Protein backbone atom coordinates (compact mmCIF):
# COMPACT_ATOMS: atom_id res chain seq x y z
CA UNK A 1 0.00 0.00 0.00
CA UNK A 2 1.53 3.25 -1.10
CA UNK A 3 0.80 6.10 1.16
CA UNK A 4 1.97 9.62 0.66
CA UNK A 5 2.68 10.82 4.14
CA UNK A 6 3.19 14.53 3.94
CA UNK A 7 3.19 15.27 7.66
CA UNK A 8 1.33 18.45 7.02
CA UNK A 9 -1.37 19.67 9.32
CA UNK A 10 -4.85 19.86 7.93
CA UNK A 11 -4.53 23.59 7.64
CA UNK A 12 -2.59 22.90 4.45
CA UNK A 13 -5.14 20.42 3.24
CA UNK A 14 -7.85 22.80 4.20
CA UNK A 15 -6.27 25.37 2.01
CA UNK A 16 -5.36 23.12 -0.89
CA UNK A 17 -8.73 21.50 -0.99
CA UNK A 18 -10.49 24.79 -1.44
CA UNK A 19 -11.73 24.23 -4.91
CA UNK A 20 -10.51 27.50 -6.35
CA UNK A 21 -6.90 27.19 -5.38
CA UNK A 22 -6.68 23.54 -5.97
CA UNK A 23 -7.86 23.97 -9.49
CA UNK A 24 -5.57 26.85 -10.23
CA UNK A 25 -2.60 24.96 -8.84
CA UNK A 26 -3.29 22.01 -11.11
CA UNK A 27 -3.63 24.17 -14.15
CA UNK A 28 -0.68 26.48 -13.74
CA UNK A 29 2.02 24.38 -12.16
CA UNK A 30 2.30 21.19 -14.04
CA UNK A 31 5.92 20.76 -13.17
CA UNK A 32 6.18 18.55 -10.10
CA UNK A 33 9.12 20.38 -8.58
CA UNK A 34 7.43 23.77 -8.67
CA UNK A 35 4.32 22.22 -7.27
CA UNK A 36 6.32 20.84 -4.36
CA UNK A 37 7.89 24.22 -3.69
CA UNK A 38 4.52 25.91 -3.68
CA UNK A 39 3.15 23.20 -1.48
CA UNK A 40 5.92 23.70 1.04
CA UNK A 41 5.49 27.45 0.93
CA UNK A 42 1.79 27.15 1.55
CA UNK A 43 2.41 24.59 4.23
CA UNK A 44 4.71 26.98 6.08
CA UNK A 45 2.21 29.81 5.66
CA UNK A 46 -0.47 27.66 7.16
CA UNK A 47 1.65 26.33 9.93
CA UNK A 48 2.04 29.91 11.07
CA UNK A 49 -1.71 30.34 11.22
CA UNK A 50 -4.28 29.18 13.70
CA UNK A 51 -6.73 26.36 13.01
CA UNK A 52 -10.13 25.33 14.28
CA UNK A 53 -9.18 21.81 15.27
CA UNK A 54 -6.21 20.17 16.91
CA UNK A 55 -4.57 18.05 14.27
CA UNK A 56 -1.26 16.27 14.53
CA UNK A 57 -0.80 15.25 10.91
CA UNK A 58 -2.74 14.21 7.85
CA UNK A 59 -2.13 11.95 4.92
CA UNK A 60 -3.70 10.96 1.64
CA UNK A 61 -4.76 7.40 1.00
CA UNK A 62 -4.20 5.75 -2.36
CA UNK A 63 -7.66 6.67 -3.47
CA UNK A 64 -6.88 10.35 -2.86
CA UNK A 65 -8.95 10.54 0.28
CA UNK A 66 -7.52 12.78 2.98
CA UNK A 67 -7.27 11.43 6.50
CA UNK A 68 -6.70 13.70 9.47
CA UNK A 69 -5.28 12.58 12.77
CA UNK A 70 -6.37 14.87 15.60
CA UNK A 71 -9.50 16.00 17.37
CA UNK A 72 -12.06 18.76 16.72
CA UNK A 73 -12.44 21.79 19.01
CA UNK A 74 -15.51 23.90 19.75
CA UNK A 75 -16.26 26.84 17.46
CA UNK A 76 -17.86 29.77 19.25
CA UNK A 77 -19.30 32.55 17.09
CA UNK A 78 -21.26 35.69 17.86
CA UNK A 79 -23.49 36.30 14.91
CA UNK A 80 -26.88 37.63 16.06
CA UNK A 81 -26.64 35.36 19.06
CA UNK A 82 -24.18 32.87 20.36
CA UNK A 83 -23.47 29.96 17.99
CA UNK A 84 -21.52 27.03 19.36
CA UNK A 85 -20.72 23.96 17.29
CA UNK A 86 -17.92 21.46 16.85
CA UNK A 87 -15.22 22.21 14.32
CA UNK A 88 -15.78 18.76 12.85
CA UNK A 89 -18.78 20.31 11.12
CA UNK A 90 -16.44 22.45 9.06
CA UNK A 91 -14.69 19.34 7.75
CA UNK A 92 -11.38 21.19 7.57
CA UNK A 93 -12.82 23.74 5.25
CA UNK A 94 -14.15 21.17 2.86
CA UNK A 95 -17.80 21.68 3.60
CA UNK A 96 -20.23 24.31 4.81
CA UNK A 97 -21.45 24.14 8.39
CA UNK A 98 -25.10 24.94 8.90
CA UNK A 99 -25.96 26.26 12.34
CA UNK A 100 -29.41 27.63 13.19
CA UNK A 101 -30.08 28.52 9.60
CA UNK A 102 -26.74 30.31 9.04
CA UNK A 103 -23.97 28.90 6.90
CA UNK A 104 -20.29 29.13 7.78
CA UNK A 105 -17.18 28.08 5.97
CA UNK A 106 -13.56 28.31 7.02
CA UNK A 107 -11.21 29.75 4.49
CA UNK A 108 -7.56 30.70 5.14
CA UNK A 109 -8.08 29.73 8.78
CA UNK A 110 -10.89 32.20 9.20
CA UNK A 111 -14.60 31.58 9.40
CA UNK A 112 -16.79 33.41 6.89
CA UNK A 113 -20.53 33.57 6.58
CA UNK A 114 -21.62 32.06 3.30
CA UNK A 115 -24.70 30.86 1.54
CA UNK A 116 -25.83 27.26 1.50
CA UNK A 117 -23.42 26.29 -1.28
CA UNK A 118 -20.42 27.88 0.45
CA UNK A 119 -19.63 30.60 -2.10
CA UNK A 120 -16.80 32.91 -1.17
CA UNK A 121 -16.56 36.22 -2.98
CA UNK A 122 -13.22 37.89 -3.62
CA UNK A 123 -12.12 41.42 -4.32
CA UNK A 124 -9.50 42.22 -6.97
CA UNK A 125 -6.67 41.66 -4.46
CA UNK A 126 -7.93 38.16 -3.90
CA UNK A 127 -9.26 38.75 -0.40
CA UNK A 128 -12.48 37.20 0.72
CA UNK A 129 -15.22 39.81 1.05
CA UNK A 130 -17.75 37.65 2.88
CA UNK A 131 -19.05 38.77 6.22
CA UNK A 132 -16.94 37.60 9.18
CA UNK A 133 -18.81 36.77 12.39
CA UNK A 134 -17.19 37.64 15.74
CA UNK A 135 -15.10 34.60 16.39
CA UNK A 136 -14.35 33.43 19.93
CA UNK A 137 -13.65 29.83 18.96
CA UNK A 138 -11.49 27.59 21.06
CA UNK A 139 -8.92 27.25 18.31
CA UNK A 140 -5.79 25.17 18.38
CA UNK A 141 -3.86 28.09 19.88
CA UNK A 142 -6.49 28.85 22.50
CA UNK A 143 -6.54 25.18 23.41
CA UNK A 144 -2.75 25.17 23.70
CA UNK A 145 -2.77 28.31 25.84
CA UNK A 146 -5.35 26.71 28.08
CA UNK A 147 -3.34 23.49 28.32
CA UNK A 148 -0.15 25.41 29.13
CA UNK A 149 -2.04 27.36 31.77
CA UNK A 150 -3.22 24.15 33.37
CA UNK A 151 0.25 22.63 33.17
CA UNK A 152 1.81 25.71 34.79
CA UNK A 153 -0.86 25.83 37.44
CA UNK A 154 -0.36 22.20 38.45
CA UNK A 155 3.40 22.40 38.21
CA UNK A 156 3.80 25.50 40.33
CA UNK A 157 0.99 24.94 42.81
CA UNK A 158 2.44 21.48 43.51
CA UNK A 159 5.81 23.08 44.01
CA UNK A 160 4.25 25.72 46.25
CA UNK A 161 2.52 23.01 48.28
CA UNK A 162 5.89 21.57 49.18
CA UNK A 163 7.12 25.00 50.23
CA UNK A 164 3.99 25.60 52.25
CA UNK A 165 4.61 22.41 54.18
CA UNK A 166 7.74 24.06 55.45
CA UNK A 167 10.34 22.31 53.36
CA UNK A 168 13.41 24.41 53.78
CA UNK A 169 15.32 22.73 50.96
CA UNK A 170 13.83 22.61 47.46
CA UNK A 171 13.13 19.16 46.10
CA UNK A 172 11.62 17.66 42.99
CA UNK A 173 10.75 20.20 40.31
CA UNK A 174 11.60 22.98 42.74
CA UNK A 175 15.24 22.07 42.54
CA UNK A 176 15.21 23.06 38.88
CA UNK A 177 12.61 25.82 38.99
CA UNK A 178 13.66 27.62 42.14
CA UNK A 179 16.97 28.90 40.73
CA UNK A 180 15.05 30.30 37.74
CA UNK A 181 12.51 31.98 40.01
CA UNK A 182 15.33 33.40 42.12
CA UNK A 183 17.14 34.54 38.97
CA UNK A 184 14.06 36.45 37.85
CA UNK A 185 13.74 37.99 41.29
CA UNK A 186 17.39 38.82 41.93
CA UNK A 187 18.67 39.62 38.44
CA UNK A 188 15.61 40.92 36.62
CA UNK A 189 13.09 42.34 39.08
CA UNK A 190 15.20 43.81 41.89
CA UNK A 191 17.88 45.56 39.76
CA UNK A 192 15.31 47.06 37.38
CA UNK A 193 12.42 47.87 39.67
CA UNK A 194 14.15 48.33 43.00
CA UNK A 195 13.82 46.57 46.33
CA UNK A 196 10.92 48.74 47.44
CA UNK A 197 8.40 47.99 44.71
CA UNK A 198 9.47 44.77 43.01
CA UNK A 199 7.10 42.49 44.93
CA UNK A 200 4.03 43.95 43.25
CA UNK A 201 5.28 42.88 39.82
CA UNK A 202 6.74 39.48 40.64
CA UNK A 203 3.57 37.51 39.81
CA UNK A 204 3.32 39.02 36.34
CA UNK A 205 7.02 38.72 35.60
CA UNK A 206 7.26 35.10 36.70
CA UNK A 207 4.09 34.08 34.89
CA UNK A 208 5.04 35.86 31.68
CA UNK A 209 8.53 34.37 31.71
CA UNK A 210 7.44 30.78 32.23
CA UNK A 211 4.46 31.16 29.91
CA UNK A 212 6.53 32.45 26.97
CA UNK A 213 9.32 30.00 27.62
CA UNK A 214 7.15 26.90 27.86
CA UNK A 215 4.98 27.90 24.92
CA UNK A 216 8.05 28.64 22.79
CA UNK A 217 9.51 25.26 23.67
CA UNK A 218 6.25 23.59 22.81
CA UNK A 219 6.41 25.30 19.43
CA UNK A 220 9.62 23.42 18.72
CA UNK A 221 8.00 20.03 19.28
CA UNK A 222 6.48 18.13 16.34
CA UNK A 223 3.01 18.81 17.77
CA UNK A 224 2.87 21.71 15.36
CA UNK A 225 1.51 24.23 17.83
CA UNK A 226 2.72 27.71 17.35
CA UNK A 227 1.30 30.25 19.72
CA UNK A 228 3.79 33.08 20.19
CA UNK A 229 3.97 33.80 16.46
CA UNK A 230 0.41 35.09 16.61
CA UNK A 231 0.36 38.83 16.81
CA UNK A 232 -2.81 38.60 18.91
CA UNK A 233 -1.01 36.64 21.64
CA UNK A 234 2.01 38.91 21.80
CA UNK A 235 -0.25 41.96 21.66
CA UNK A 236 -2.21 40.67 24.65
CA UNK A 237 1.02 40.17 26.62
CA UNK A 238 2.45 43.56 25.64
CA UNK A 239 -0.86 45.25 26.40
CA UNK A 240 -0.72 43.84 29.93
CA UNK A 241 2.79 45.23 30.35
CA UNK A 242 1.55 48.59 29.10
CA UNK A 243 -1.50 48.60 31.35
CA UNK A 244 0.47 47.59 34.43
CA UNK A 245 3.08 50.27 33.69
CA UNK A 246 0.40 52.90 33.18
CA UNK A 247 -1.69 52.07 36.21
CA UNK A 248 1.15 51.65 38.69
CA UNK A 249 3.11 54.68 37.50
CA UNK A 250 3.81 57.36 40.07
CA UNK A 251 3.65 61.14 39.81
CA UNK A 252 7.26 61.46 38.81
CA UNK A 253 6.76 59.14 35.80
CA UNK A 254 3.93 61.26 34.44
CA UNK A 255 5.85 64.38 35.33
CA UNK A 256 8.69 63.24 33.13
CA UNK A 257 6.33 62.55 30.26
CA UNK A 258 4.18 65.67 30.21
CA UNK A 259 6.46 68.26 31.73
CA UNK A 260 10.06 67.12 31.52
CA UNK A 261 11.90 68.82 34.37
CA UNK A 262 15.16 70.56 33.78
CA UNK A 263 14.60 71.66 30.18
CA UNK A 264 13.38 75.05 28.87
CA UNK A 265 9.61 75.32 28.43
CA UNK A 266 9.46 75.25 24.60
CA UNK A 267 11.33 71.97 24.79
CA UNK A 268 8.85 70.68 27.33
CA UNK A 269 6.03 71.22 24.86
CA UNK A 270 7.93 69.44 22.10
CA UNK A 271 8.97 66.59 24.36
CA UNK A 272 5.52 65.80 25.78
CA UNK A 273 4.04 64.17 22.63
CA UNK A 274 7.31 62.38 21.93
CA UNK A 275 7.43 60.96 25.44
CA UNK A 276 3.76 60.03 25.29
CA UNK A 277 4.35 58.20 22.03
CA UNK A 278 7.36 56.54 23.63
CA UNK A 279 5.18 54.90 26.27
CA UNK A 280 3.24 53.22 23.45
CA UNK A 281 6.25 52.36 21.34
CA UNK A 282 7.96 50.56 24.20
CA UNK A 283 5.32 47.83 24.61
CA UNK A 284 4.80 47.81 20.84
CA UNK A 285 8.45 46.89 20.37
CA UNK A 286 7.87 44.08 22.88
CA UNK A 287 5.05 42.56 20.88
CA UNK A 288 6.81 42.88 17.51
CA UNK A 289 10.08 41.49 18.87
CA UNK A 290 8.55 38.35 20.28
CA UNK A 291 6.27 37.83 17.27
CA UNK A 292 9.00 38.41 14.69
CA UNK A 293 11.64 36.29 16.39
CA UNK A 294 9.44 33.27 16.77
CA UNK A 295 7.88 33.62 13.31
CA UNK A 296 11.26 34.02 11.65
CA UNK A 297 12.63 31.02 13.53
CA UNK A 298 9.74 28.86 12.42
CA UNK A 299 9.88 29.99 8.80
CA UNK A 300 13.62 29.38 8.51
CA UNK A 301 13.48 26.04 10.28
CA UNK A 302 10.59 24.79 8.22
CA UNK A 303 12.09 26.05 4.97
CA UNK A 304 15.21 24.07 5.67
CA UNK A 305 13.19 20.99 6.54
CA UNK A 306 11.23 21.57 3.32
CA UNK A 307 14.50 21.63 1.36
CA UNK A 308 14.91 17.96 2.20
CA UNK A 309 11.82 17.17 0.17
CA UNK A 310 12.88 19.36 -2.73
CA UNK A 311 16.46 18.09 -3.06
CA UNK A 312 15.54 14.46 -2.74
CA UNK A 313 19.19 13.40 -2.92
CA UNK A 314 21.42 12.18 -0.15
CA UNK A 315 23.77 15.19 -0.09
CA UNK A 316 21.16 17.94 -0.09
CA UNK A 317 18.91 16.19 2.33
CA UNK A 318 21.60 15.35 4.81
CA UNK A 319 22.97 18.88 4.59
CA UNK A 320 19.59 20.38 5.29
CA UNK A 321 19.10 17.85 8.06
CA UNK A 322 22.36 19.02 9.68
CA UNK A 323 21.35 22.64 9.21
CA UNK A 324 17.89 22.00 10.62
CA UNK A 325 19.40 20.27 13.61
CA UNK A 326 21.77 23.19 14.29
CA UNK A 327 18.95 25.67 13.87
CA UNK A 328 16.72 23.70 16.23
CA UNK A 329 19.39 24.06 18.87
CA UNK A 330 19.54 27.79 18.16
CA UNK A 331 15.77 27.98 18.42
CA UNK A 332 15.96 26.32 21.84
CA UNK A 333 18.16 29.20 22.90
CA UNK A 334 15.87 31.75 21.25
CA UNK A 335 12.87 30.27 23.07
CA UNK A 336 14.46 31.03 26.44
CA UNK A 337 16.07 34.26 25.25
CA UNK A 338 12.81 35.78 24.03
CA UNK A 339 11.13 34.88 27.31
CA UNK A 340 14.03 36.50 29.16
CA UNK A 341 13.97 39.64 27.00
CA UNK A 342 10.23 40.08 27.35
CA UNK A 343 10.46 39.70 31.13
CA UNK A 344 13.55 41.90 31.36
CA UNK A 345 12.07 44.75 29.32
CA UNK A 346 8.73 44.53 31.15
CA UNK A 347 10.64 44.84 34.41
CA UNK A 348 12.55 47.81 32.98
CA UNK A 349 9.31 49.59 32.06
CA UNK A 350 7.80 48.85 35.47
CA UNK A 351 10.97 50.18 37.02
CA UNK A 352 10.67 53.45 35.10
CA UNK A 353 7.06 53.74 36.26
CA UNK A 354 7.89 53.54 39.95
CA UNK A 355 11.32 55.16 39.88
CA UNK A 356 11.65 57.98 42.37
CA UNK A 357 13.57 60.73 40.72
CA UNK A 358 15.88 62.82 42.73
CA UNK A 359 15.51 66.25 41.23
CA UNK A 360 18.81 67.37 42.55
CA UNK A 361 20.35 65.19 39.85
CA UNK A 362 18.91 67.16 36.98
Amino acid at each position, binding site marked *: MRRKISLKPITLLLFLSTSFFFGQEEAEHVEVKTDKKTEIKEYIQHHL*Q*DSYDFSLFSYETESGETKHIGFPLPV*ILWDNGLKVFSSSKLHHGESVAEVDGSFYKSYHS*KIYKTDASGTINYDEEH*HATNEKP*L*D*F*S*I*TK*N*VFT*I*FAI*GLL*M*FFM*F*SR*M*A*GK*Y*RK*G*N*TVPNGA*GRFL*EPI*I*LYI*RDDIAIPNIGKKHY*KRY*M*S*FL*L*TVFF*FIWIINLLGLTPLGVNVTN*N*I*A*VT*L*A*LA*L*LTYLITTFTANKSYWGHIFWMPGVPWPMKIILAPIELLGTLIKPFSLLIRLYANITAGHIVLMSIIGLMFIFKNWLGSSLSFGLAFALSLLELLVAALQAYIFTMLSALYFGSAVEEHNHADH
Partner: protein
Amino acid sequence: MEKLINDFSIGLFFWQLVLFIGLVLLLRKFAWKPILDAVEKRESGIEDALKSAEKAKLEMQNLQADNQKLLQEARMERESLLKDARDIKNKMIEDAKGEAQDQANKIIEQAQAAIESEKKAAIAELKTQVANLSIEIAEKVMREELSSSDKQLKLVESMLGETKFN
Protein backbone atom coordinates in the same frame (compact mmCIF):
# COMPACT_ATOMS: atom_id res chain seq x y z
CA MET B 1 1.59 45.33 7.94
CA GLU B 2 -1.59 44.52 6.04
CA LYS B 3 -0.83 40.85 6.54
CA LEU B 4 -0.31 41.44 10.25
CA ILE B 5 -3.68 43.16 10.57
CA ASN B 6 -5.29 40.49 8.46
CA ASP B 7 -3.79 37.76 10.63
CA PHE B 8 -4.94 39.41 13.81
CA SER B 9 -7.62 37.35 15.46
CA ILE B 10 -9.85 39.06 18.00
CA GLY B 11 -10.90 35.72 19.42
CA LEU B 12 -7.36 34.61 20.08
CA PHE B 13 -6.56 38.02 21.58
CA PHE B 14 -9.57 37.80 23.85
CA TRP B 15 -8.80 34.28 25.01
CA GLN B 16 -5.12 35.00 25.51
CA LEU B 17 -5.96 38.06 27.61
CA VAL B 18 -8.57 36.25 29.71
CA LEU B 19 -6.59 33.05 30.18
CA PHE B 20 -3.35 34.84 30.91
CA ILE B 21 -4.84 37.21 33.46
CA GLY B 22 -6.57 34.21 35.06
CA LEU B 23 -3.28 32.36 35.11
CA VAL B 24 -1.44 35.30 36.70
CA LEU B 25 -4.09 35.64 39.41
CA LEU B 26 -4.28 31.90 40.11
CA LEU B 27 -0.54 31.47 40.19
CA ARG B 28 -0.14 34.51 42.41
CA LYS B 29 -2.42 33.01 45.00
CA PHE B 30 -1.42 29.37 44.73
CA ALA B 31 2.18 29.43 43.62
CA TRP B 32 4.22 32.60 43.54
CA LYS B 33 3.19 33.99 46.89
CA PRO B 34 3.85 30.82 48.92
CA ILE B 35 7.05 30.08 47.01
CA LEU B 36 8.46 33.57 47.31
CA ASP B 37 7.39 33.82 50.95
CA ALA B 38 9.02 30.50 51.77
CA VAL B 39 12.20 31.48 49.94
CA GLU B 40 12.27 34.82 51.72
CA LYS B 41 11.69 33.14 55.05
CA ARG B 42 14.49 30.72 54.34
CA GLU B 43 16.81 33.52 53.30
CA SER B 44 16.11 35.55 56.40
CA GLY B 45 16.56 32.37 58.45
CA ILE B 46 19.96 31.80 56.90
CA GLU B 47 20.89 35.41 57.48
CA ASP B 48 19.76 35.20 61.11
CA ALA B 49 21.68 31.98 61.61
CA LEU B 50 24.81 33.55 60.17
CA LYS B 51 24.39 36.62 62.33
CA SER B 52 23.84 34.61 65.48
CA ALA B 53 26.84 32.44 64.64
CA GLU B 54 28.92 35.59 64.29
CA LYS B 55 27.52 36.82 67.59
CA ALA B 56 28.27 33.51 69.27
CA LYS B 57 31.79 33.66 67.95
CA LEU B 58 32.24 37.15 69.36
CA GLU B 59 30.74 36.08 72.68
CA MET B 60 33.06 33.12 72.72
CA GLN B 61 35.98 35.42 72.16
CA ASN B 62 34.80 37.70 74.93
CA LEU B 63 34.36 34.73 77.19
CA GLN B 64 37.83 33.53 76.44
CA ALA B 65 39.22 36.98 77.12
CA ASP B 66 37.26 37.05 80.38
CA ASN B 67 38.61 33.65 81.30
CA GLN B 68 42.12 34.81 80.58
CA LYS B 69 41.55 37.87 82.70
CA LEU B 70 40.07 35.84 85.50
CA LEU B 71 42.98 33.45 85.39
CA GLN B 72 45.38 36.34 85.48
CA GLU B 73 43.57 37.82 88.43
CA ALA B 74 43.50 34.52 90.25
CA ARG B 75 47.20 34.08 89.66
CA MET B 76 47.89 37.57 90.95
CA GLU B 77 45.73 37.00 93.97
CA ARG B 78 47.46 33.75 94.71
CA GLU B 79 50.78 35.50 94.50
CA SER B 80 49.68 38.30 96.77
CA LEU B 81 48.20 35.78 99.18
CA LEU B 82 51.43 33.85 99.23
CA LYS B 83 53.36 37.02 99.73
CA ASP B 84 51.10 38.04 102.61
CA ALA B 85 51.45 34.67 104.17
CA ARG B 86 55.19 34.86 103.86
CA ASP B 87 55.16 38.33 105.39
CA ILE B 88 52.99 37.20 108.23
CA LYS B 89 55.20 34.23 108.83
CA ASN B 90 58.30 36.40 108.87
CA LYS B 91 56.66 38.90 111.11
CA MET B 92 55.54 36.22 113.49
CA ILE B 93 58.98 34.77 113.62
CA GLU B 94 60.42 38.24 114.10
CA ASP B 95 57.94 39.01 116.86
CA ALA B 96 58.58 35.72 118.55
CA LYS B 97 62.28 36.30 118.36
CA GLY B 98 61.95 39.78 119.87
CA GLU B 99 59.78 38.60 122.69
CA ALA B 100 62.08 35.71 123.44
CA GLN B 101 64.99 38.12 123.50
CA ASP B 102 63.16 40.42 125.86
CA GLN B 103 62.20 37.56 128.07
CA ALA B 104 65.73 36.25 128.07
CA ASN B 105 67.12 39.69 128.83
CA LYS B 106 64.72 40.12 131.67
CA ILE B 107 65.58 36.74 133.11
CA ILE B 108 69.27 37.48 132.74
CA GLU B 109 68.78 40.85 134.42
CA GLN B 110 66.89 39.31 137.25
CA ALA B 111 69.53 36.64 137.56
CA GLN B 112 72.25 39.28 137.60
CA ALA B 113 70.37 41.29 140.21
CA ALA B 114 69.92 38.21 142.31
CA ILE B 115 73.57 37.33 141.89
CA GLU B 116 74.57 40.87 142.88
CA SER B 117 72.45 40.89 145.98
CA GLU B 118 73.68 37.40 146.92
CA LYS B 119 77.16 38.61 146.39
CA LYS B 120 76.62 41.63 148.54
CA ALA B 121 75.09 39.58 151.28
CA ALA B 122 77.94 37.11 151.03
CA ILE B 123 80.47 39.89 151.17
CA ALA B 124 78.72 41.45 154.13
CA GLU B 125 78.67 38.14 155.93
CA LEU B 126 82.26 37.51 155.06
CA LYS B 127 83.11 40.90 156.50
CA THR B 128 81.35 40.23 159.74
CA GLN B 129 82.97 36.79 159.90
CA VAL B 130 86.36 38.29 159.20
CA ALA B 131 85.78 40.95 161.86
CA ASN B 132 84.65 38.38 164.36
CA LEU B 133 87.62 36.18 163.51
CA SER B 134 90.07 39.01 163.77
CA ILE B 135 88.58 40.08 167.09
CA GLU B 136 88.83 36.54 168.35
CA ILE B 137 92.36 36.26 167.08
CA ALA B 138 93.23 39.60 168.61
CA GLU B 139 91.68 38.53 171.88
CA LYS B 140 93.63 35.30 171.83
CA VAL B 141 96.85 37.11 170.95
CA MET B 142 96.23 39.64 173.63
CA ARG B 143 95.53 37.01 176.08
CA GLU B 144 98.76 35.31 175.06
CA GLU B 145 100.88 38.49 175.11
CA LEU B 146 99.59 39.90 178.27
CA SER B 147 99.81 36.77 180.24
CA SER B 148 103.06 37.87 181.94
CA SER B 149 103.90 41.28 183.42
CA ASP B 150 107.19 41.44 181.61
CA LYS B 151 105.64 41.15 178.39
CA GLN B 152 103.07 43.76 179.37
CA LEU B 153 105.72 46.21 180.35
CA LYS B 154 107.74 45.61 177.24
CA LEU B 155 104.73 46.36 175.21
CA VAL B 156 104.00 49.42 177.02
CA GLU B 157 107.49 50.55 176.55
CA SER B 158 107.57 49.84 172.85
CA MET B 159 104.39 51.61 172.40
CA LEU B 160 105.63 54.46 174.35
CA GLY B 161 108.75 54.47 172.38
CA GLU B 162 106.78 54.58 169.18
CA THR B 163 104.75 57.34 170.50
CA LYS B 164 106.91 60.41 170.53
CA PHE B 165 105.83 63.19 172.60
CA ASN B 166 105.56 66.18 170.79
